């Protein structure tokens, strides 16, 4: 036995899974959506994705370098600081950058994405303490920031010729603002088109639902996310939307269920943004409350505002997570309610 022996509290064996590995899984799950985005929207989408990811990673690095004490020391030992940064780099900024690009319409300018990505990482994430400390989803907040800062029209309406047929169809930033909310029947798109994203305008990563589903299956199989969470959110939200539509039109059309579920950023938000570890509740019951609240808010706000609201709803619910975590707590195993005033221990 030599001096390099390690002493610590148990357990002495640990699982192979690391933060880095999990984030890598998320990146892998996002790749199909990104590829389909590039296929549909060509160079525009590619430039946006590249800018966003690079800006996100670069911002994180610069922040790491500047923040905290000893800037001059760090400059002197720049090589070592870089090595140390690389050692603690956990792909979270890549995920943020990728998600941010994928929830933007392809008509957005590259410098807008640049600013949005820097905002997401520097203001939303790093200032609060970096990985694991941010209060709200950086990508969702970055999108909202861009949406409010630059021309709103670019984010709500986009007219772009999709690859499938050359014709220009009227849709919003998503299919949602076209048919479902304005009641413009001519904007109805076949379910298969919606599912594959052919002939549908929308955000880069949100159009091809097949790619999203692939990512979902991968994440669920790798147990990165719980399979029921996106399902609960999507299904409940779509069902409530159908109900709300029935209030307006006095006809209950369950056939619209798929339209609501497949349109807009709902699926993307449910799979990749709402399930973000940092900003979702930790306990099982808390998660249940969180996803139900998300679904209710999404459908109600969609109905009232006629806008795509998923990012807003996710950011709003993120802010309530600490409250949920404090008040929705699972009782320990073997807990019995004590009849007297005394709390059971």
């Amino acid at each position, binding site marked *: 036995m*030599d001096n390099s*022996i390690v*002493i*610590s509290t*148990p357990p002495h064996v640990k699982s192979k899974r690391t933060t880095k590995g999990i984030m890598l899984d998320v990146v892998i799950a996002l790749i199909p959506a990104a590829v389909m985005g590039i296929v549909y929207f060509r160079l525009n989408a590619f430039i946006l994705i590249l800018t966003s990811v690079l800006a996100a990673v670069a911002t994180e690095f610069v922040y790491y370098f500047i923040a905290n004490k000893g800037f001059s*020391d760090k400059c002197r030992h720049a090589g070592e600081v870089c090595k140390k940064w690389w050692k*603690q780099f956990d792909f979270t900024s890549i995920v943020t950058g990728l998600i941010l690009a994928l929830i933007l319409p392809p008509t957005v300018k590259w410098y807008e994405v640049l600013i949005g990505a820097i905002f997401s990482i520097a203001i939303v994430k790093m200032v609060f303490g970096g990985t694991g*400390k941010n209060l709200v989803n950086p990508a969702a907040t970055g999108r909202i920031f861009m949406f409010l800062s630059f021309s709103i029209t670019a984010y709500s309406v986009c007219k772009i010729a999709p690859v499938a047929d050359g014709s220009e169809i009227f849709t919003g930033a998503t299919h949602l603002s076209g048919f479902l909310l304005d009641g413009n029947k001519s904007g109805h798109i076949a379910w298969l088109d919606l599912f594959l994203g052919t002939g549908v305008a929308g955000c880069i990563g949100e159009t091809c639902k097949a790619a999203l589903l692939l990512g979902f299956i991968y994440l669920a199989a790798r147990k990165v996310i719980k399979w029921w969470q996106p399902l609960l959110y999507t299904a409940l939200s779509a069902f409530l939307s159908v109900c709300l539509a029935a209030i307006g039109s006095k006809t209950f059309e369950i056939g619209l269920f798929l339209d609501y579920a497949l349109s807009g950023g709902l699926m993307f938000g449910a799979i990749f943004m709402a399930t973000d570890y940092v900003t979702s509740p930790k306990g099982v019951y808390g998660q249940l409350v969180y996803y139900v609240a998300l679904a209710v808010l999404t459908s109600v706000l969609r109905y009232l505002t006629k806008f795509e609201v998923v990012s807003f709803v996710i950011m709003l619910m993120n802010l309530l997570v600490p409250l949920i975590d404090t008040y929705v707590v699972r009782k320990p195993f073997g807990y019995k309610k004590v009849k007297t005033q005394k709390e059971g221990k």
Partner: protein
Amino acid sequence: MKAIKGKPFFAGIHVRGKKSLACGHRTEIMPEPAEAYISLSQSLGKPAVAVVVKGQKVKEGELIAKADGAISSNVFASISGEVTDVRQLTGANGCSETYIVIKGDGTCEKAYLPPLNGPSAEEIKARIKDCGIVGLGGAGFPAAVKVAPRTAVDTLILNGAECEPYLTCDHRLMLENTDEIARGARYIAKALGVDKIIIGIEANKPDCIEMFERYDDIQPVILKKQYPMGSEKHLIYVTTGRKVGIGKLPADSGVVVQNVATAFAVCEAVEKGKPLYERILTVSGEGVKQPKNLWVRAGTCVKDIVDFCGGEVTEQIIKKDLQTAETDDENQTEKSAVKKVVQGGPMTGLALATYDVYTHKTTSGILLLTKKEAAAEEPTPCLNCGMCADACPMHLMPMQTAFYSAAGDFDTAAKLGNTLACIECGACEFICPAKRPLIQAIRKTKAYVRSKEAPLPDAKPVDQKGRSAPTVPLTEDGKIVEKPVMQKIDESVKNSEGELKNAAVEKITEEVKKQAEKEEK
């Protein structure tokens, strides 16, 4: 009886068992040590009081220290010879313990109690107490207290789960001494006055399940291969469907749980009059040359055990300059591959700092882990992924405890994390992708809360600002030092653990005393 499946339980983790390292090896008997260092605190509770003096001759199995109070157990000489010293030494857990040193004379003279034939319940209870039998699952709770429950019980559960990875000693014992275990279980059942005996065995030991299906009065229950299935509360739930309340004893739910090794010890004590001074333990891990299951006497030096198993595995470091060296021998230097030495199981055991510690009758394993197995990685920031909460068999929130205790707010930590219900199984820290030291935070919080509830005369308050993980320090010239994290446990944590144990024990002792007084009245 035909084996049945246990109730499903949705929590816990799947650990790679690594049991194949040692489970194929028949148990061997470790030769008698030349000198035995026998600790007086071999069970949960107060240390025993020495009844021998320096220079006295003792025989194997002779009483050398008497139990002090209700929660304590007798200690016996594990070899025959002469008592050369009674002194204080630092034990495996870093606390000071009193040891009786016996120098062997090699005569192997035995001094057992008379065997019992067809004993009555009272006789069995007395024998269990006299023979110093403790729970051999790891905690070392005196068995005499367990067989005299305060409430009516109707079921005896034998714990053959052995859910800890690496350990195979119970597995071997169940295969090789099935009859003795069954008889021991019947003795315990008789002492308790119950006739329902259940044995819980994990599904990865089908051979053991088959062995126990032969008996008509023992019901084998197949447990899912899941950690921690051997935890008392979960074993009771899975086999009988009863839940044990928090802070309650299994007897309150009408159940008594005993380890299979305890049942074996009871059988030996009743039929042969043999006191508990040796036990079967597993030596395993990829760092040891020949993994083995051994019968080891209490007080054997860990170094002797490791040497008996072929010693440490070494890895060869080949020198870079091949041009100058000609023979292979000059080329290579050997370095130990062992990174961590663990006494007990890898999930709940104690990391040893040195081989100069001595086994107790509760030591269930010696594991030599290599760097690859020991996974001593630096913790990264918590992601709030909630995997620890999902894995927690007690449905707690370990991340809340860790978060608030790191900030020094132990009260909130205990409240939100429900820390006092924690069984410290280690599932949360095992699963944590950020490798956070959760168990350390939990223990710190527990120690703080307990020291506040029942301040001990010599209790030191836990450091309010105590951070759970040491940060990476910078040297004077600003360079970043690569240093393995968690090389040393915080002294305060170590101390508080000892205090914690004592505080808990004193509480139980007082309760038992009160009960006894009531009964007398």
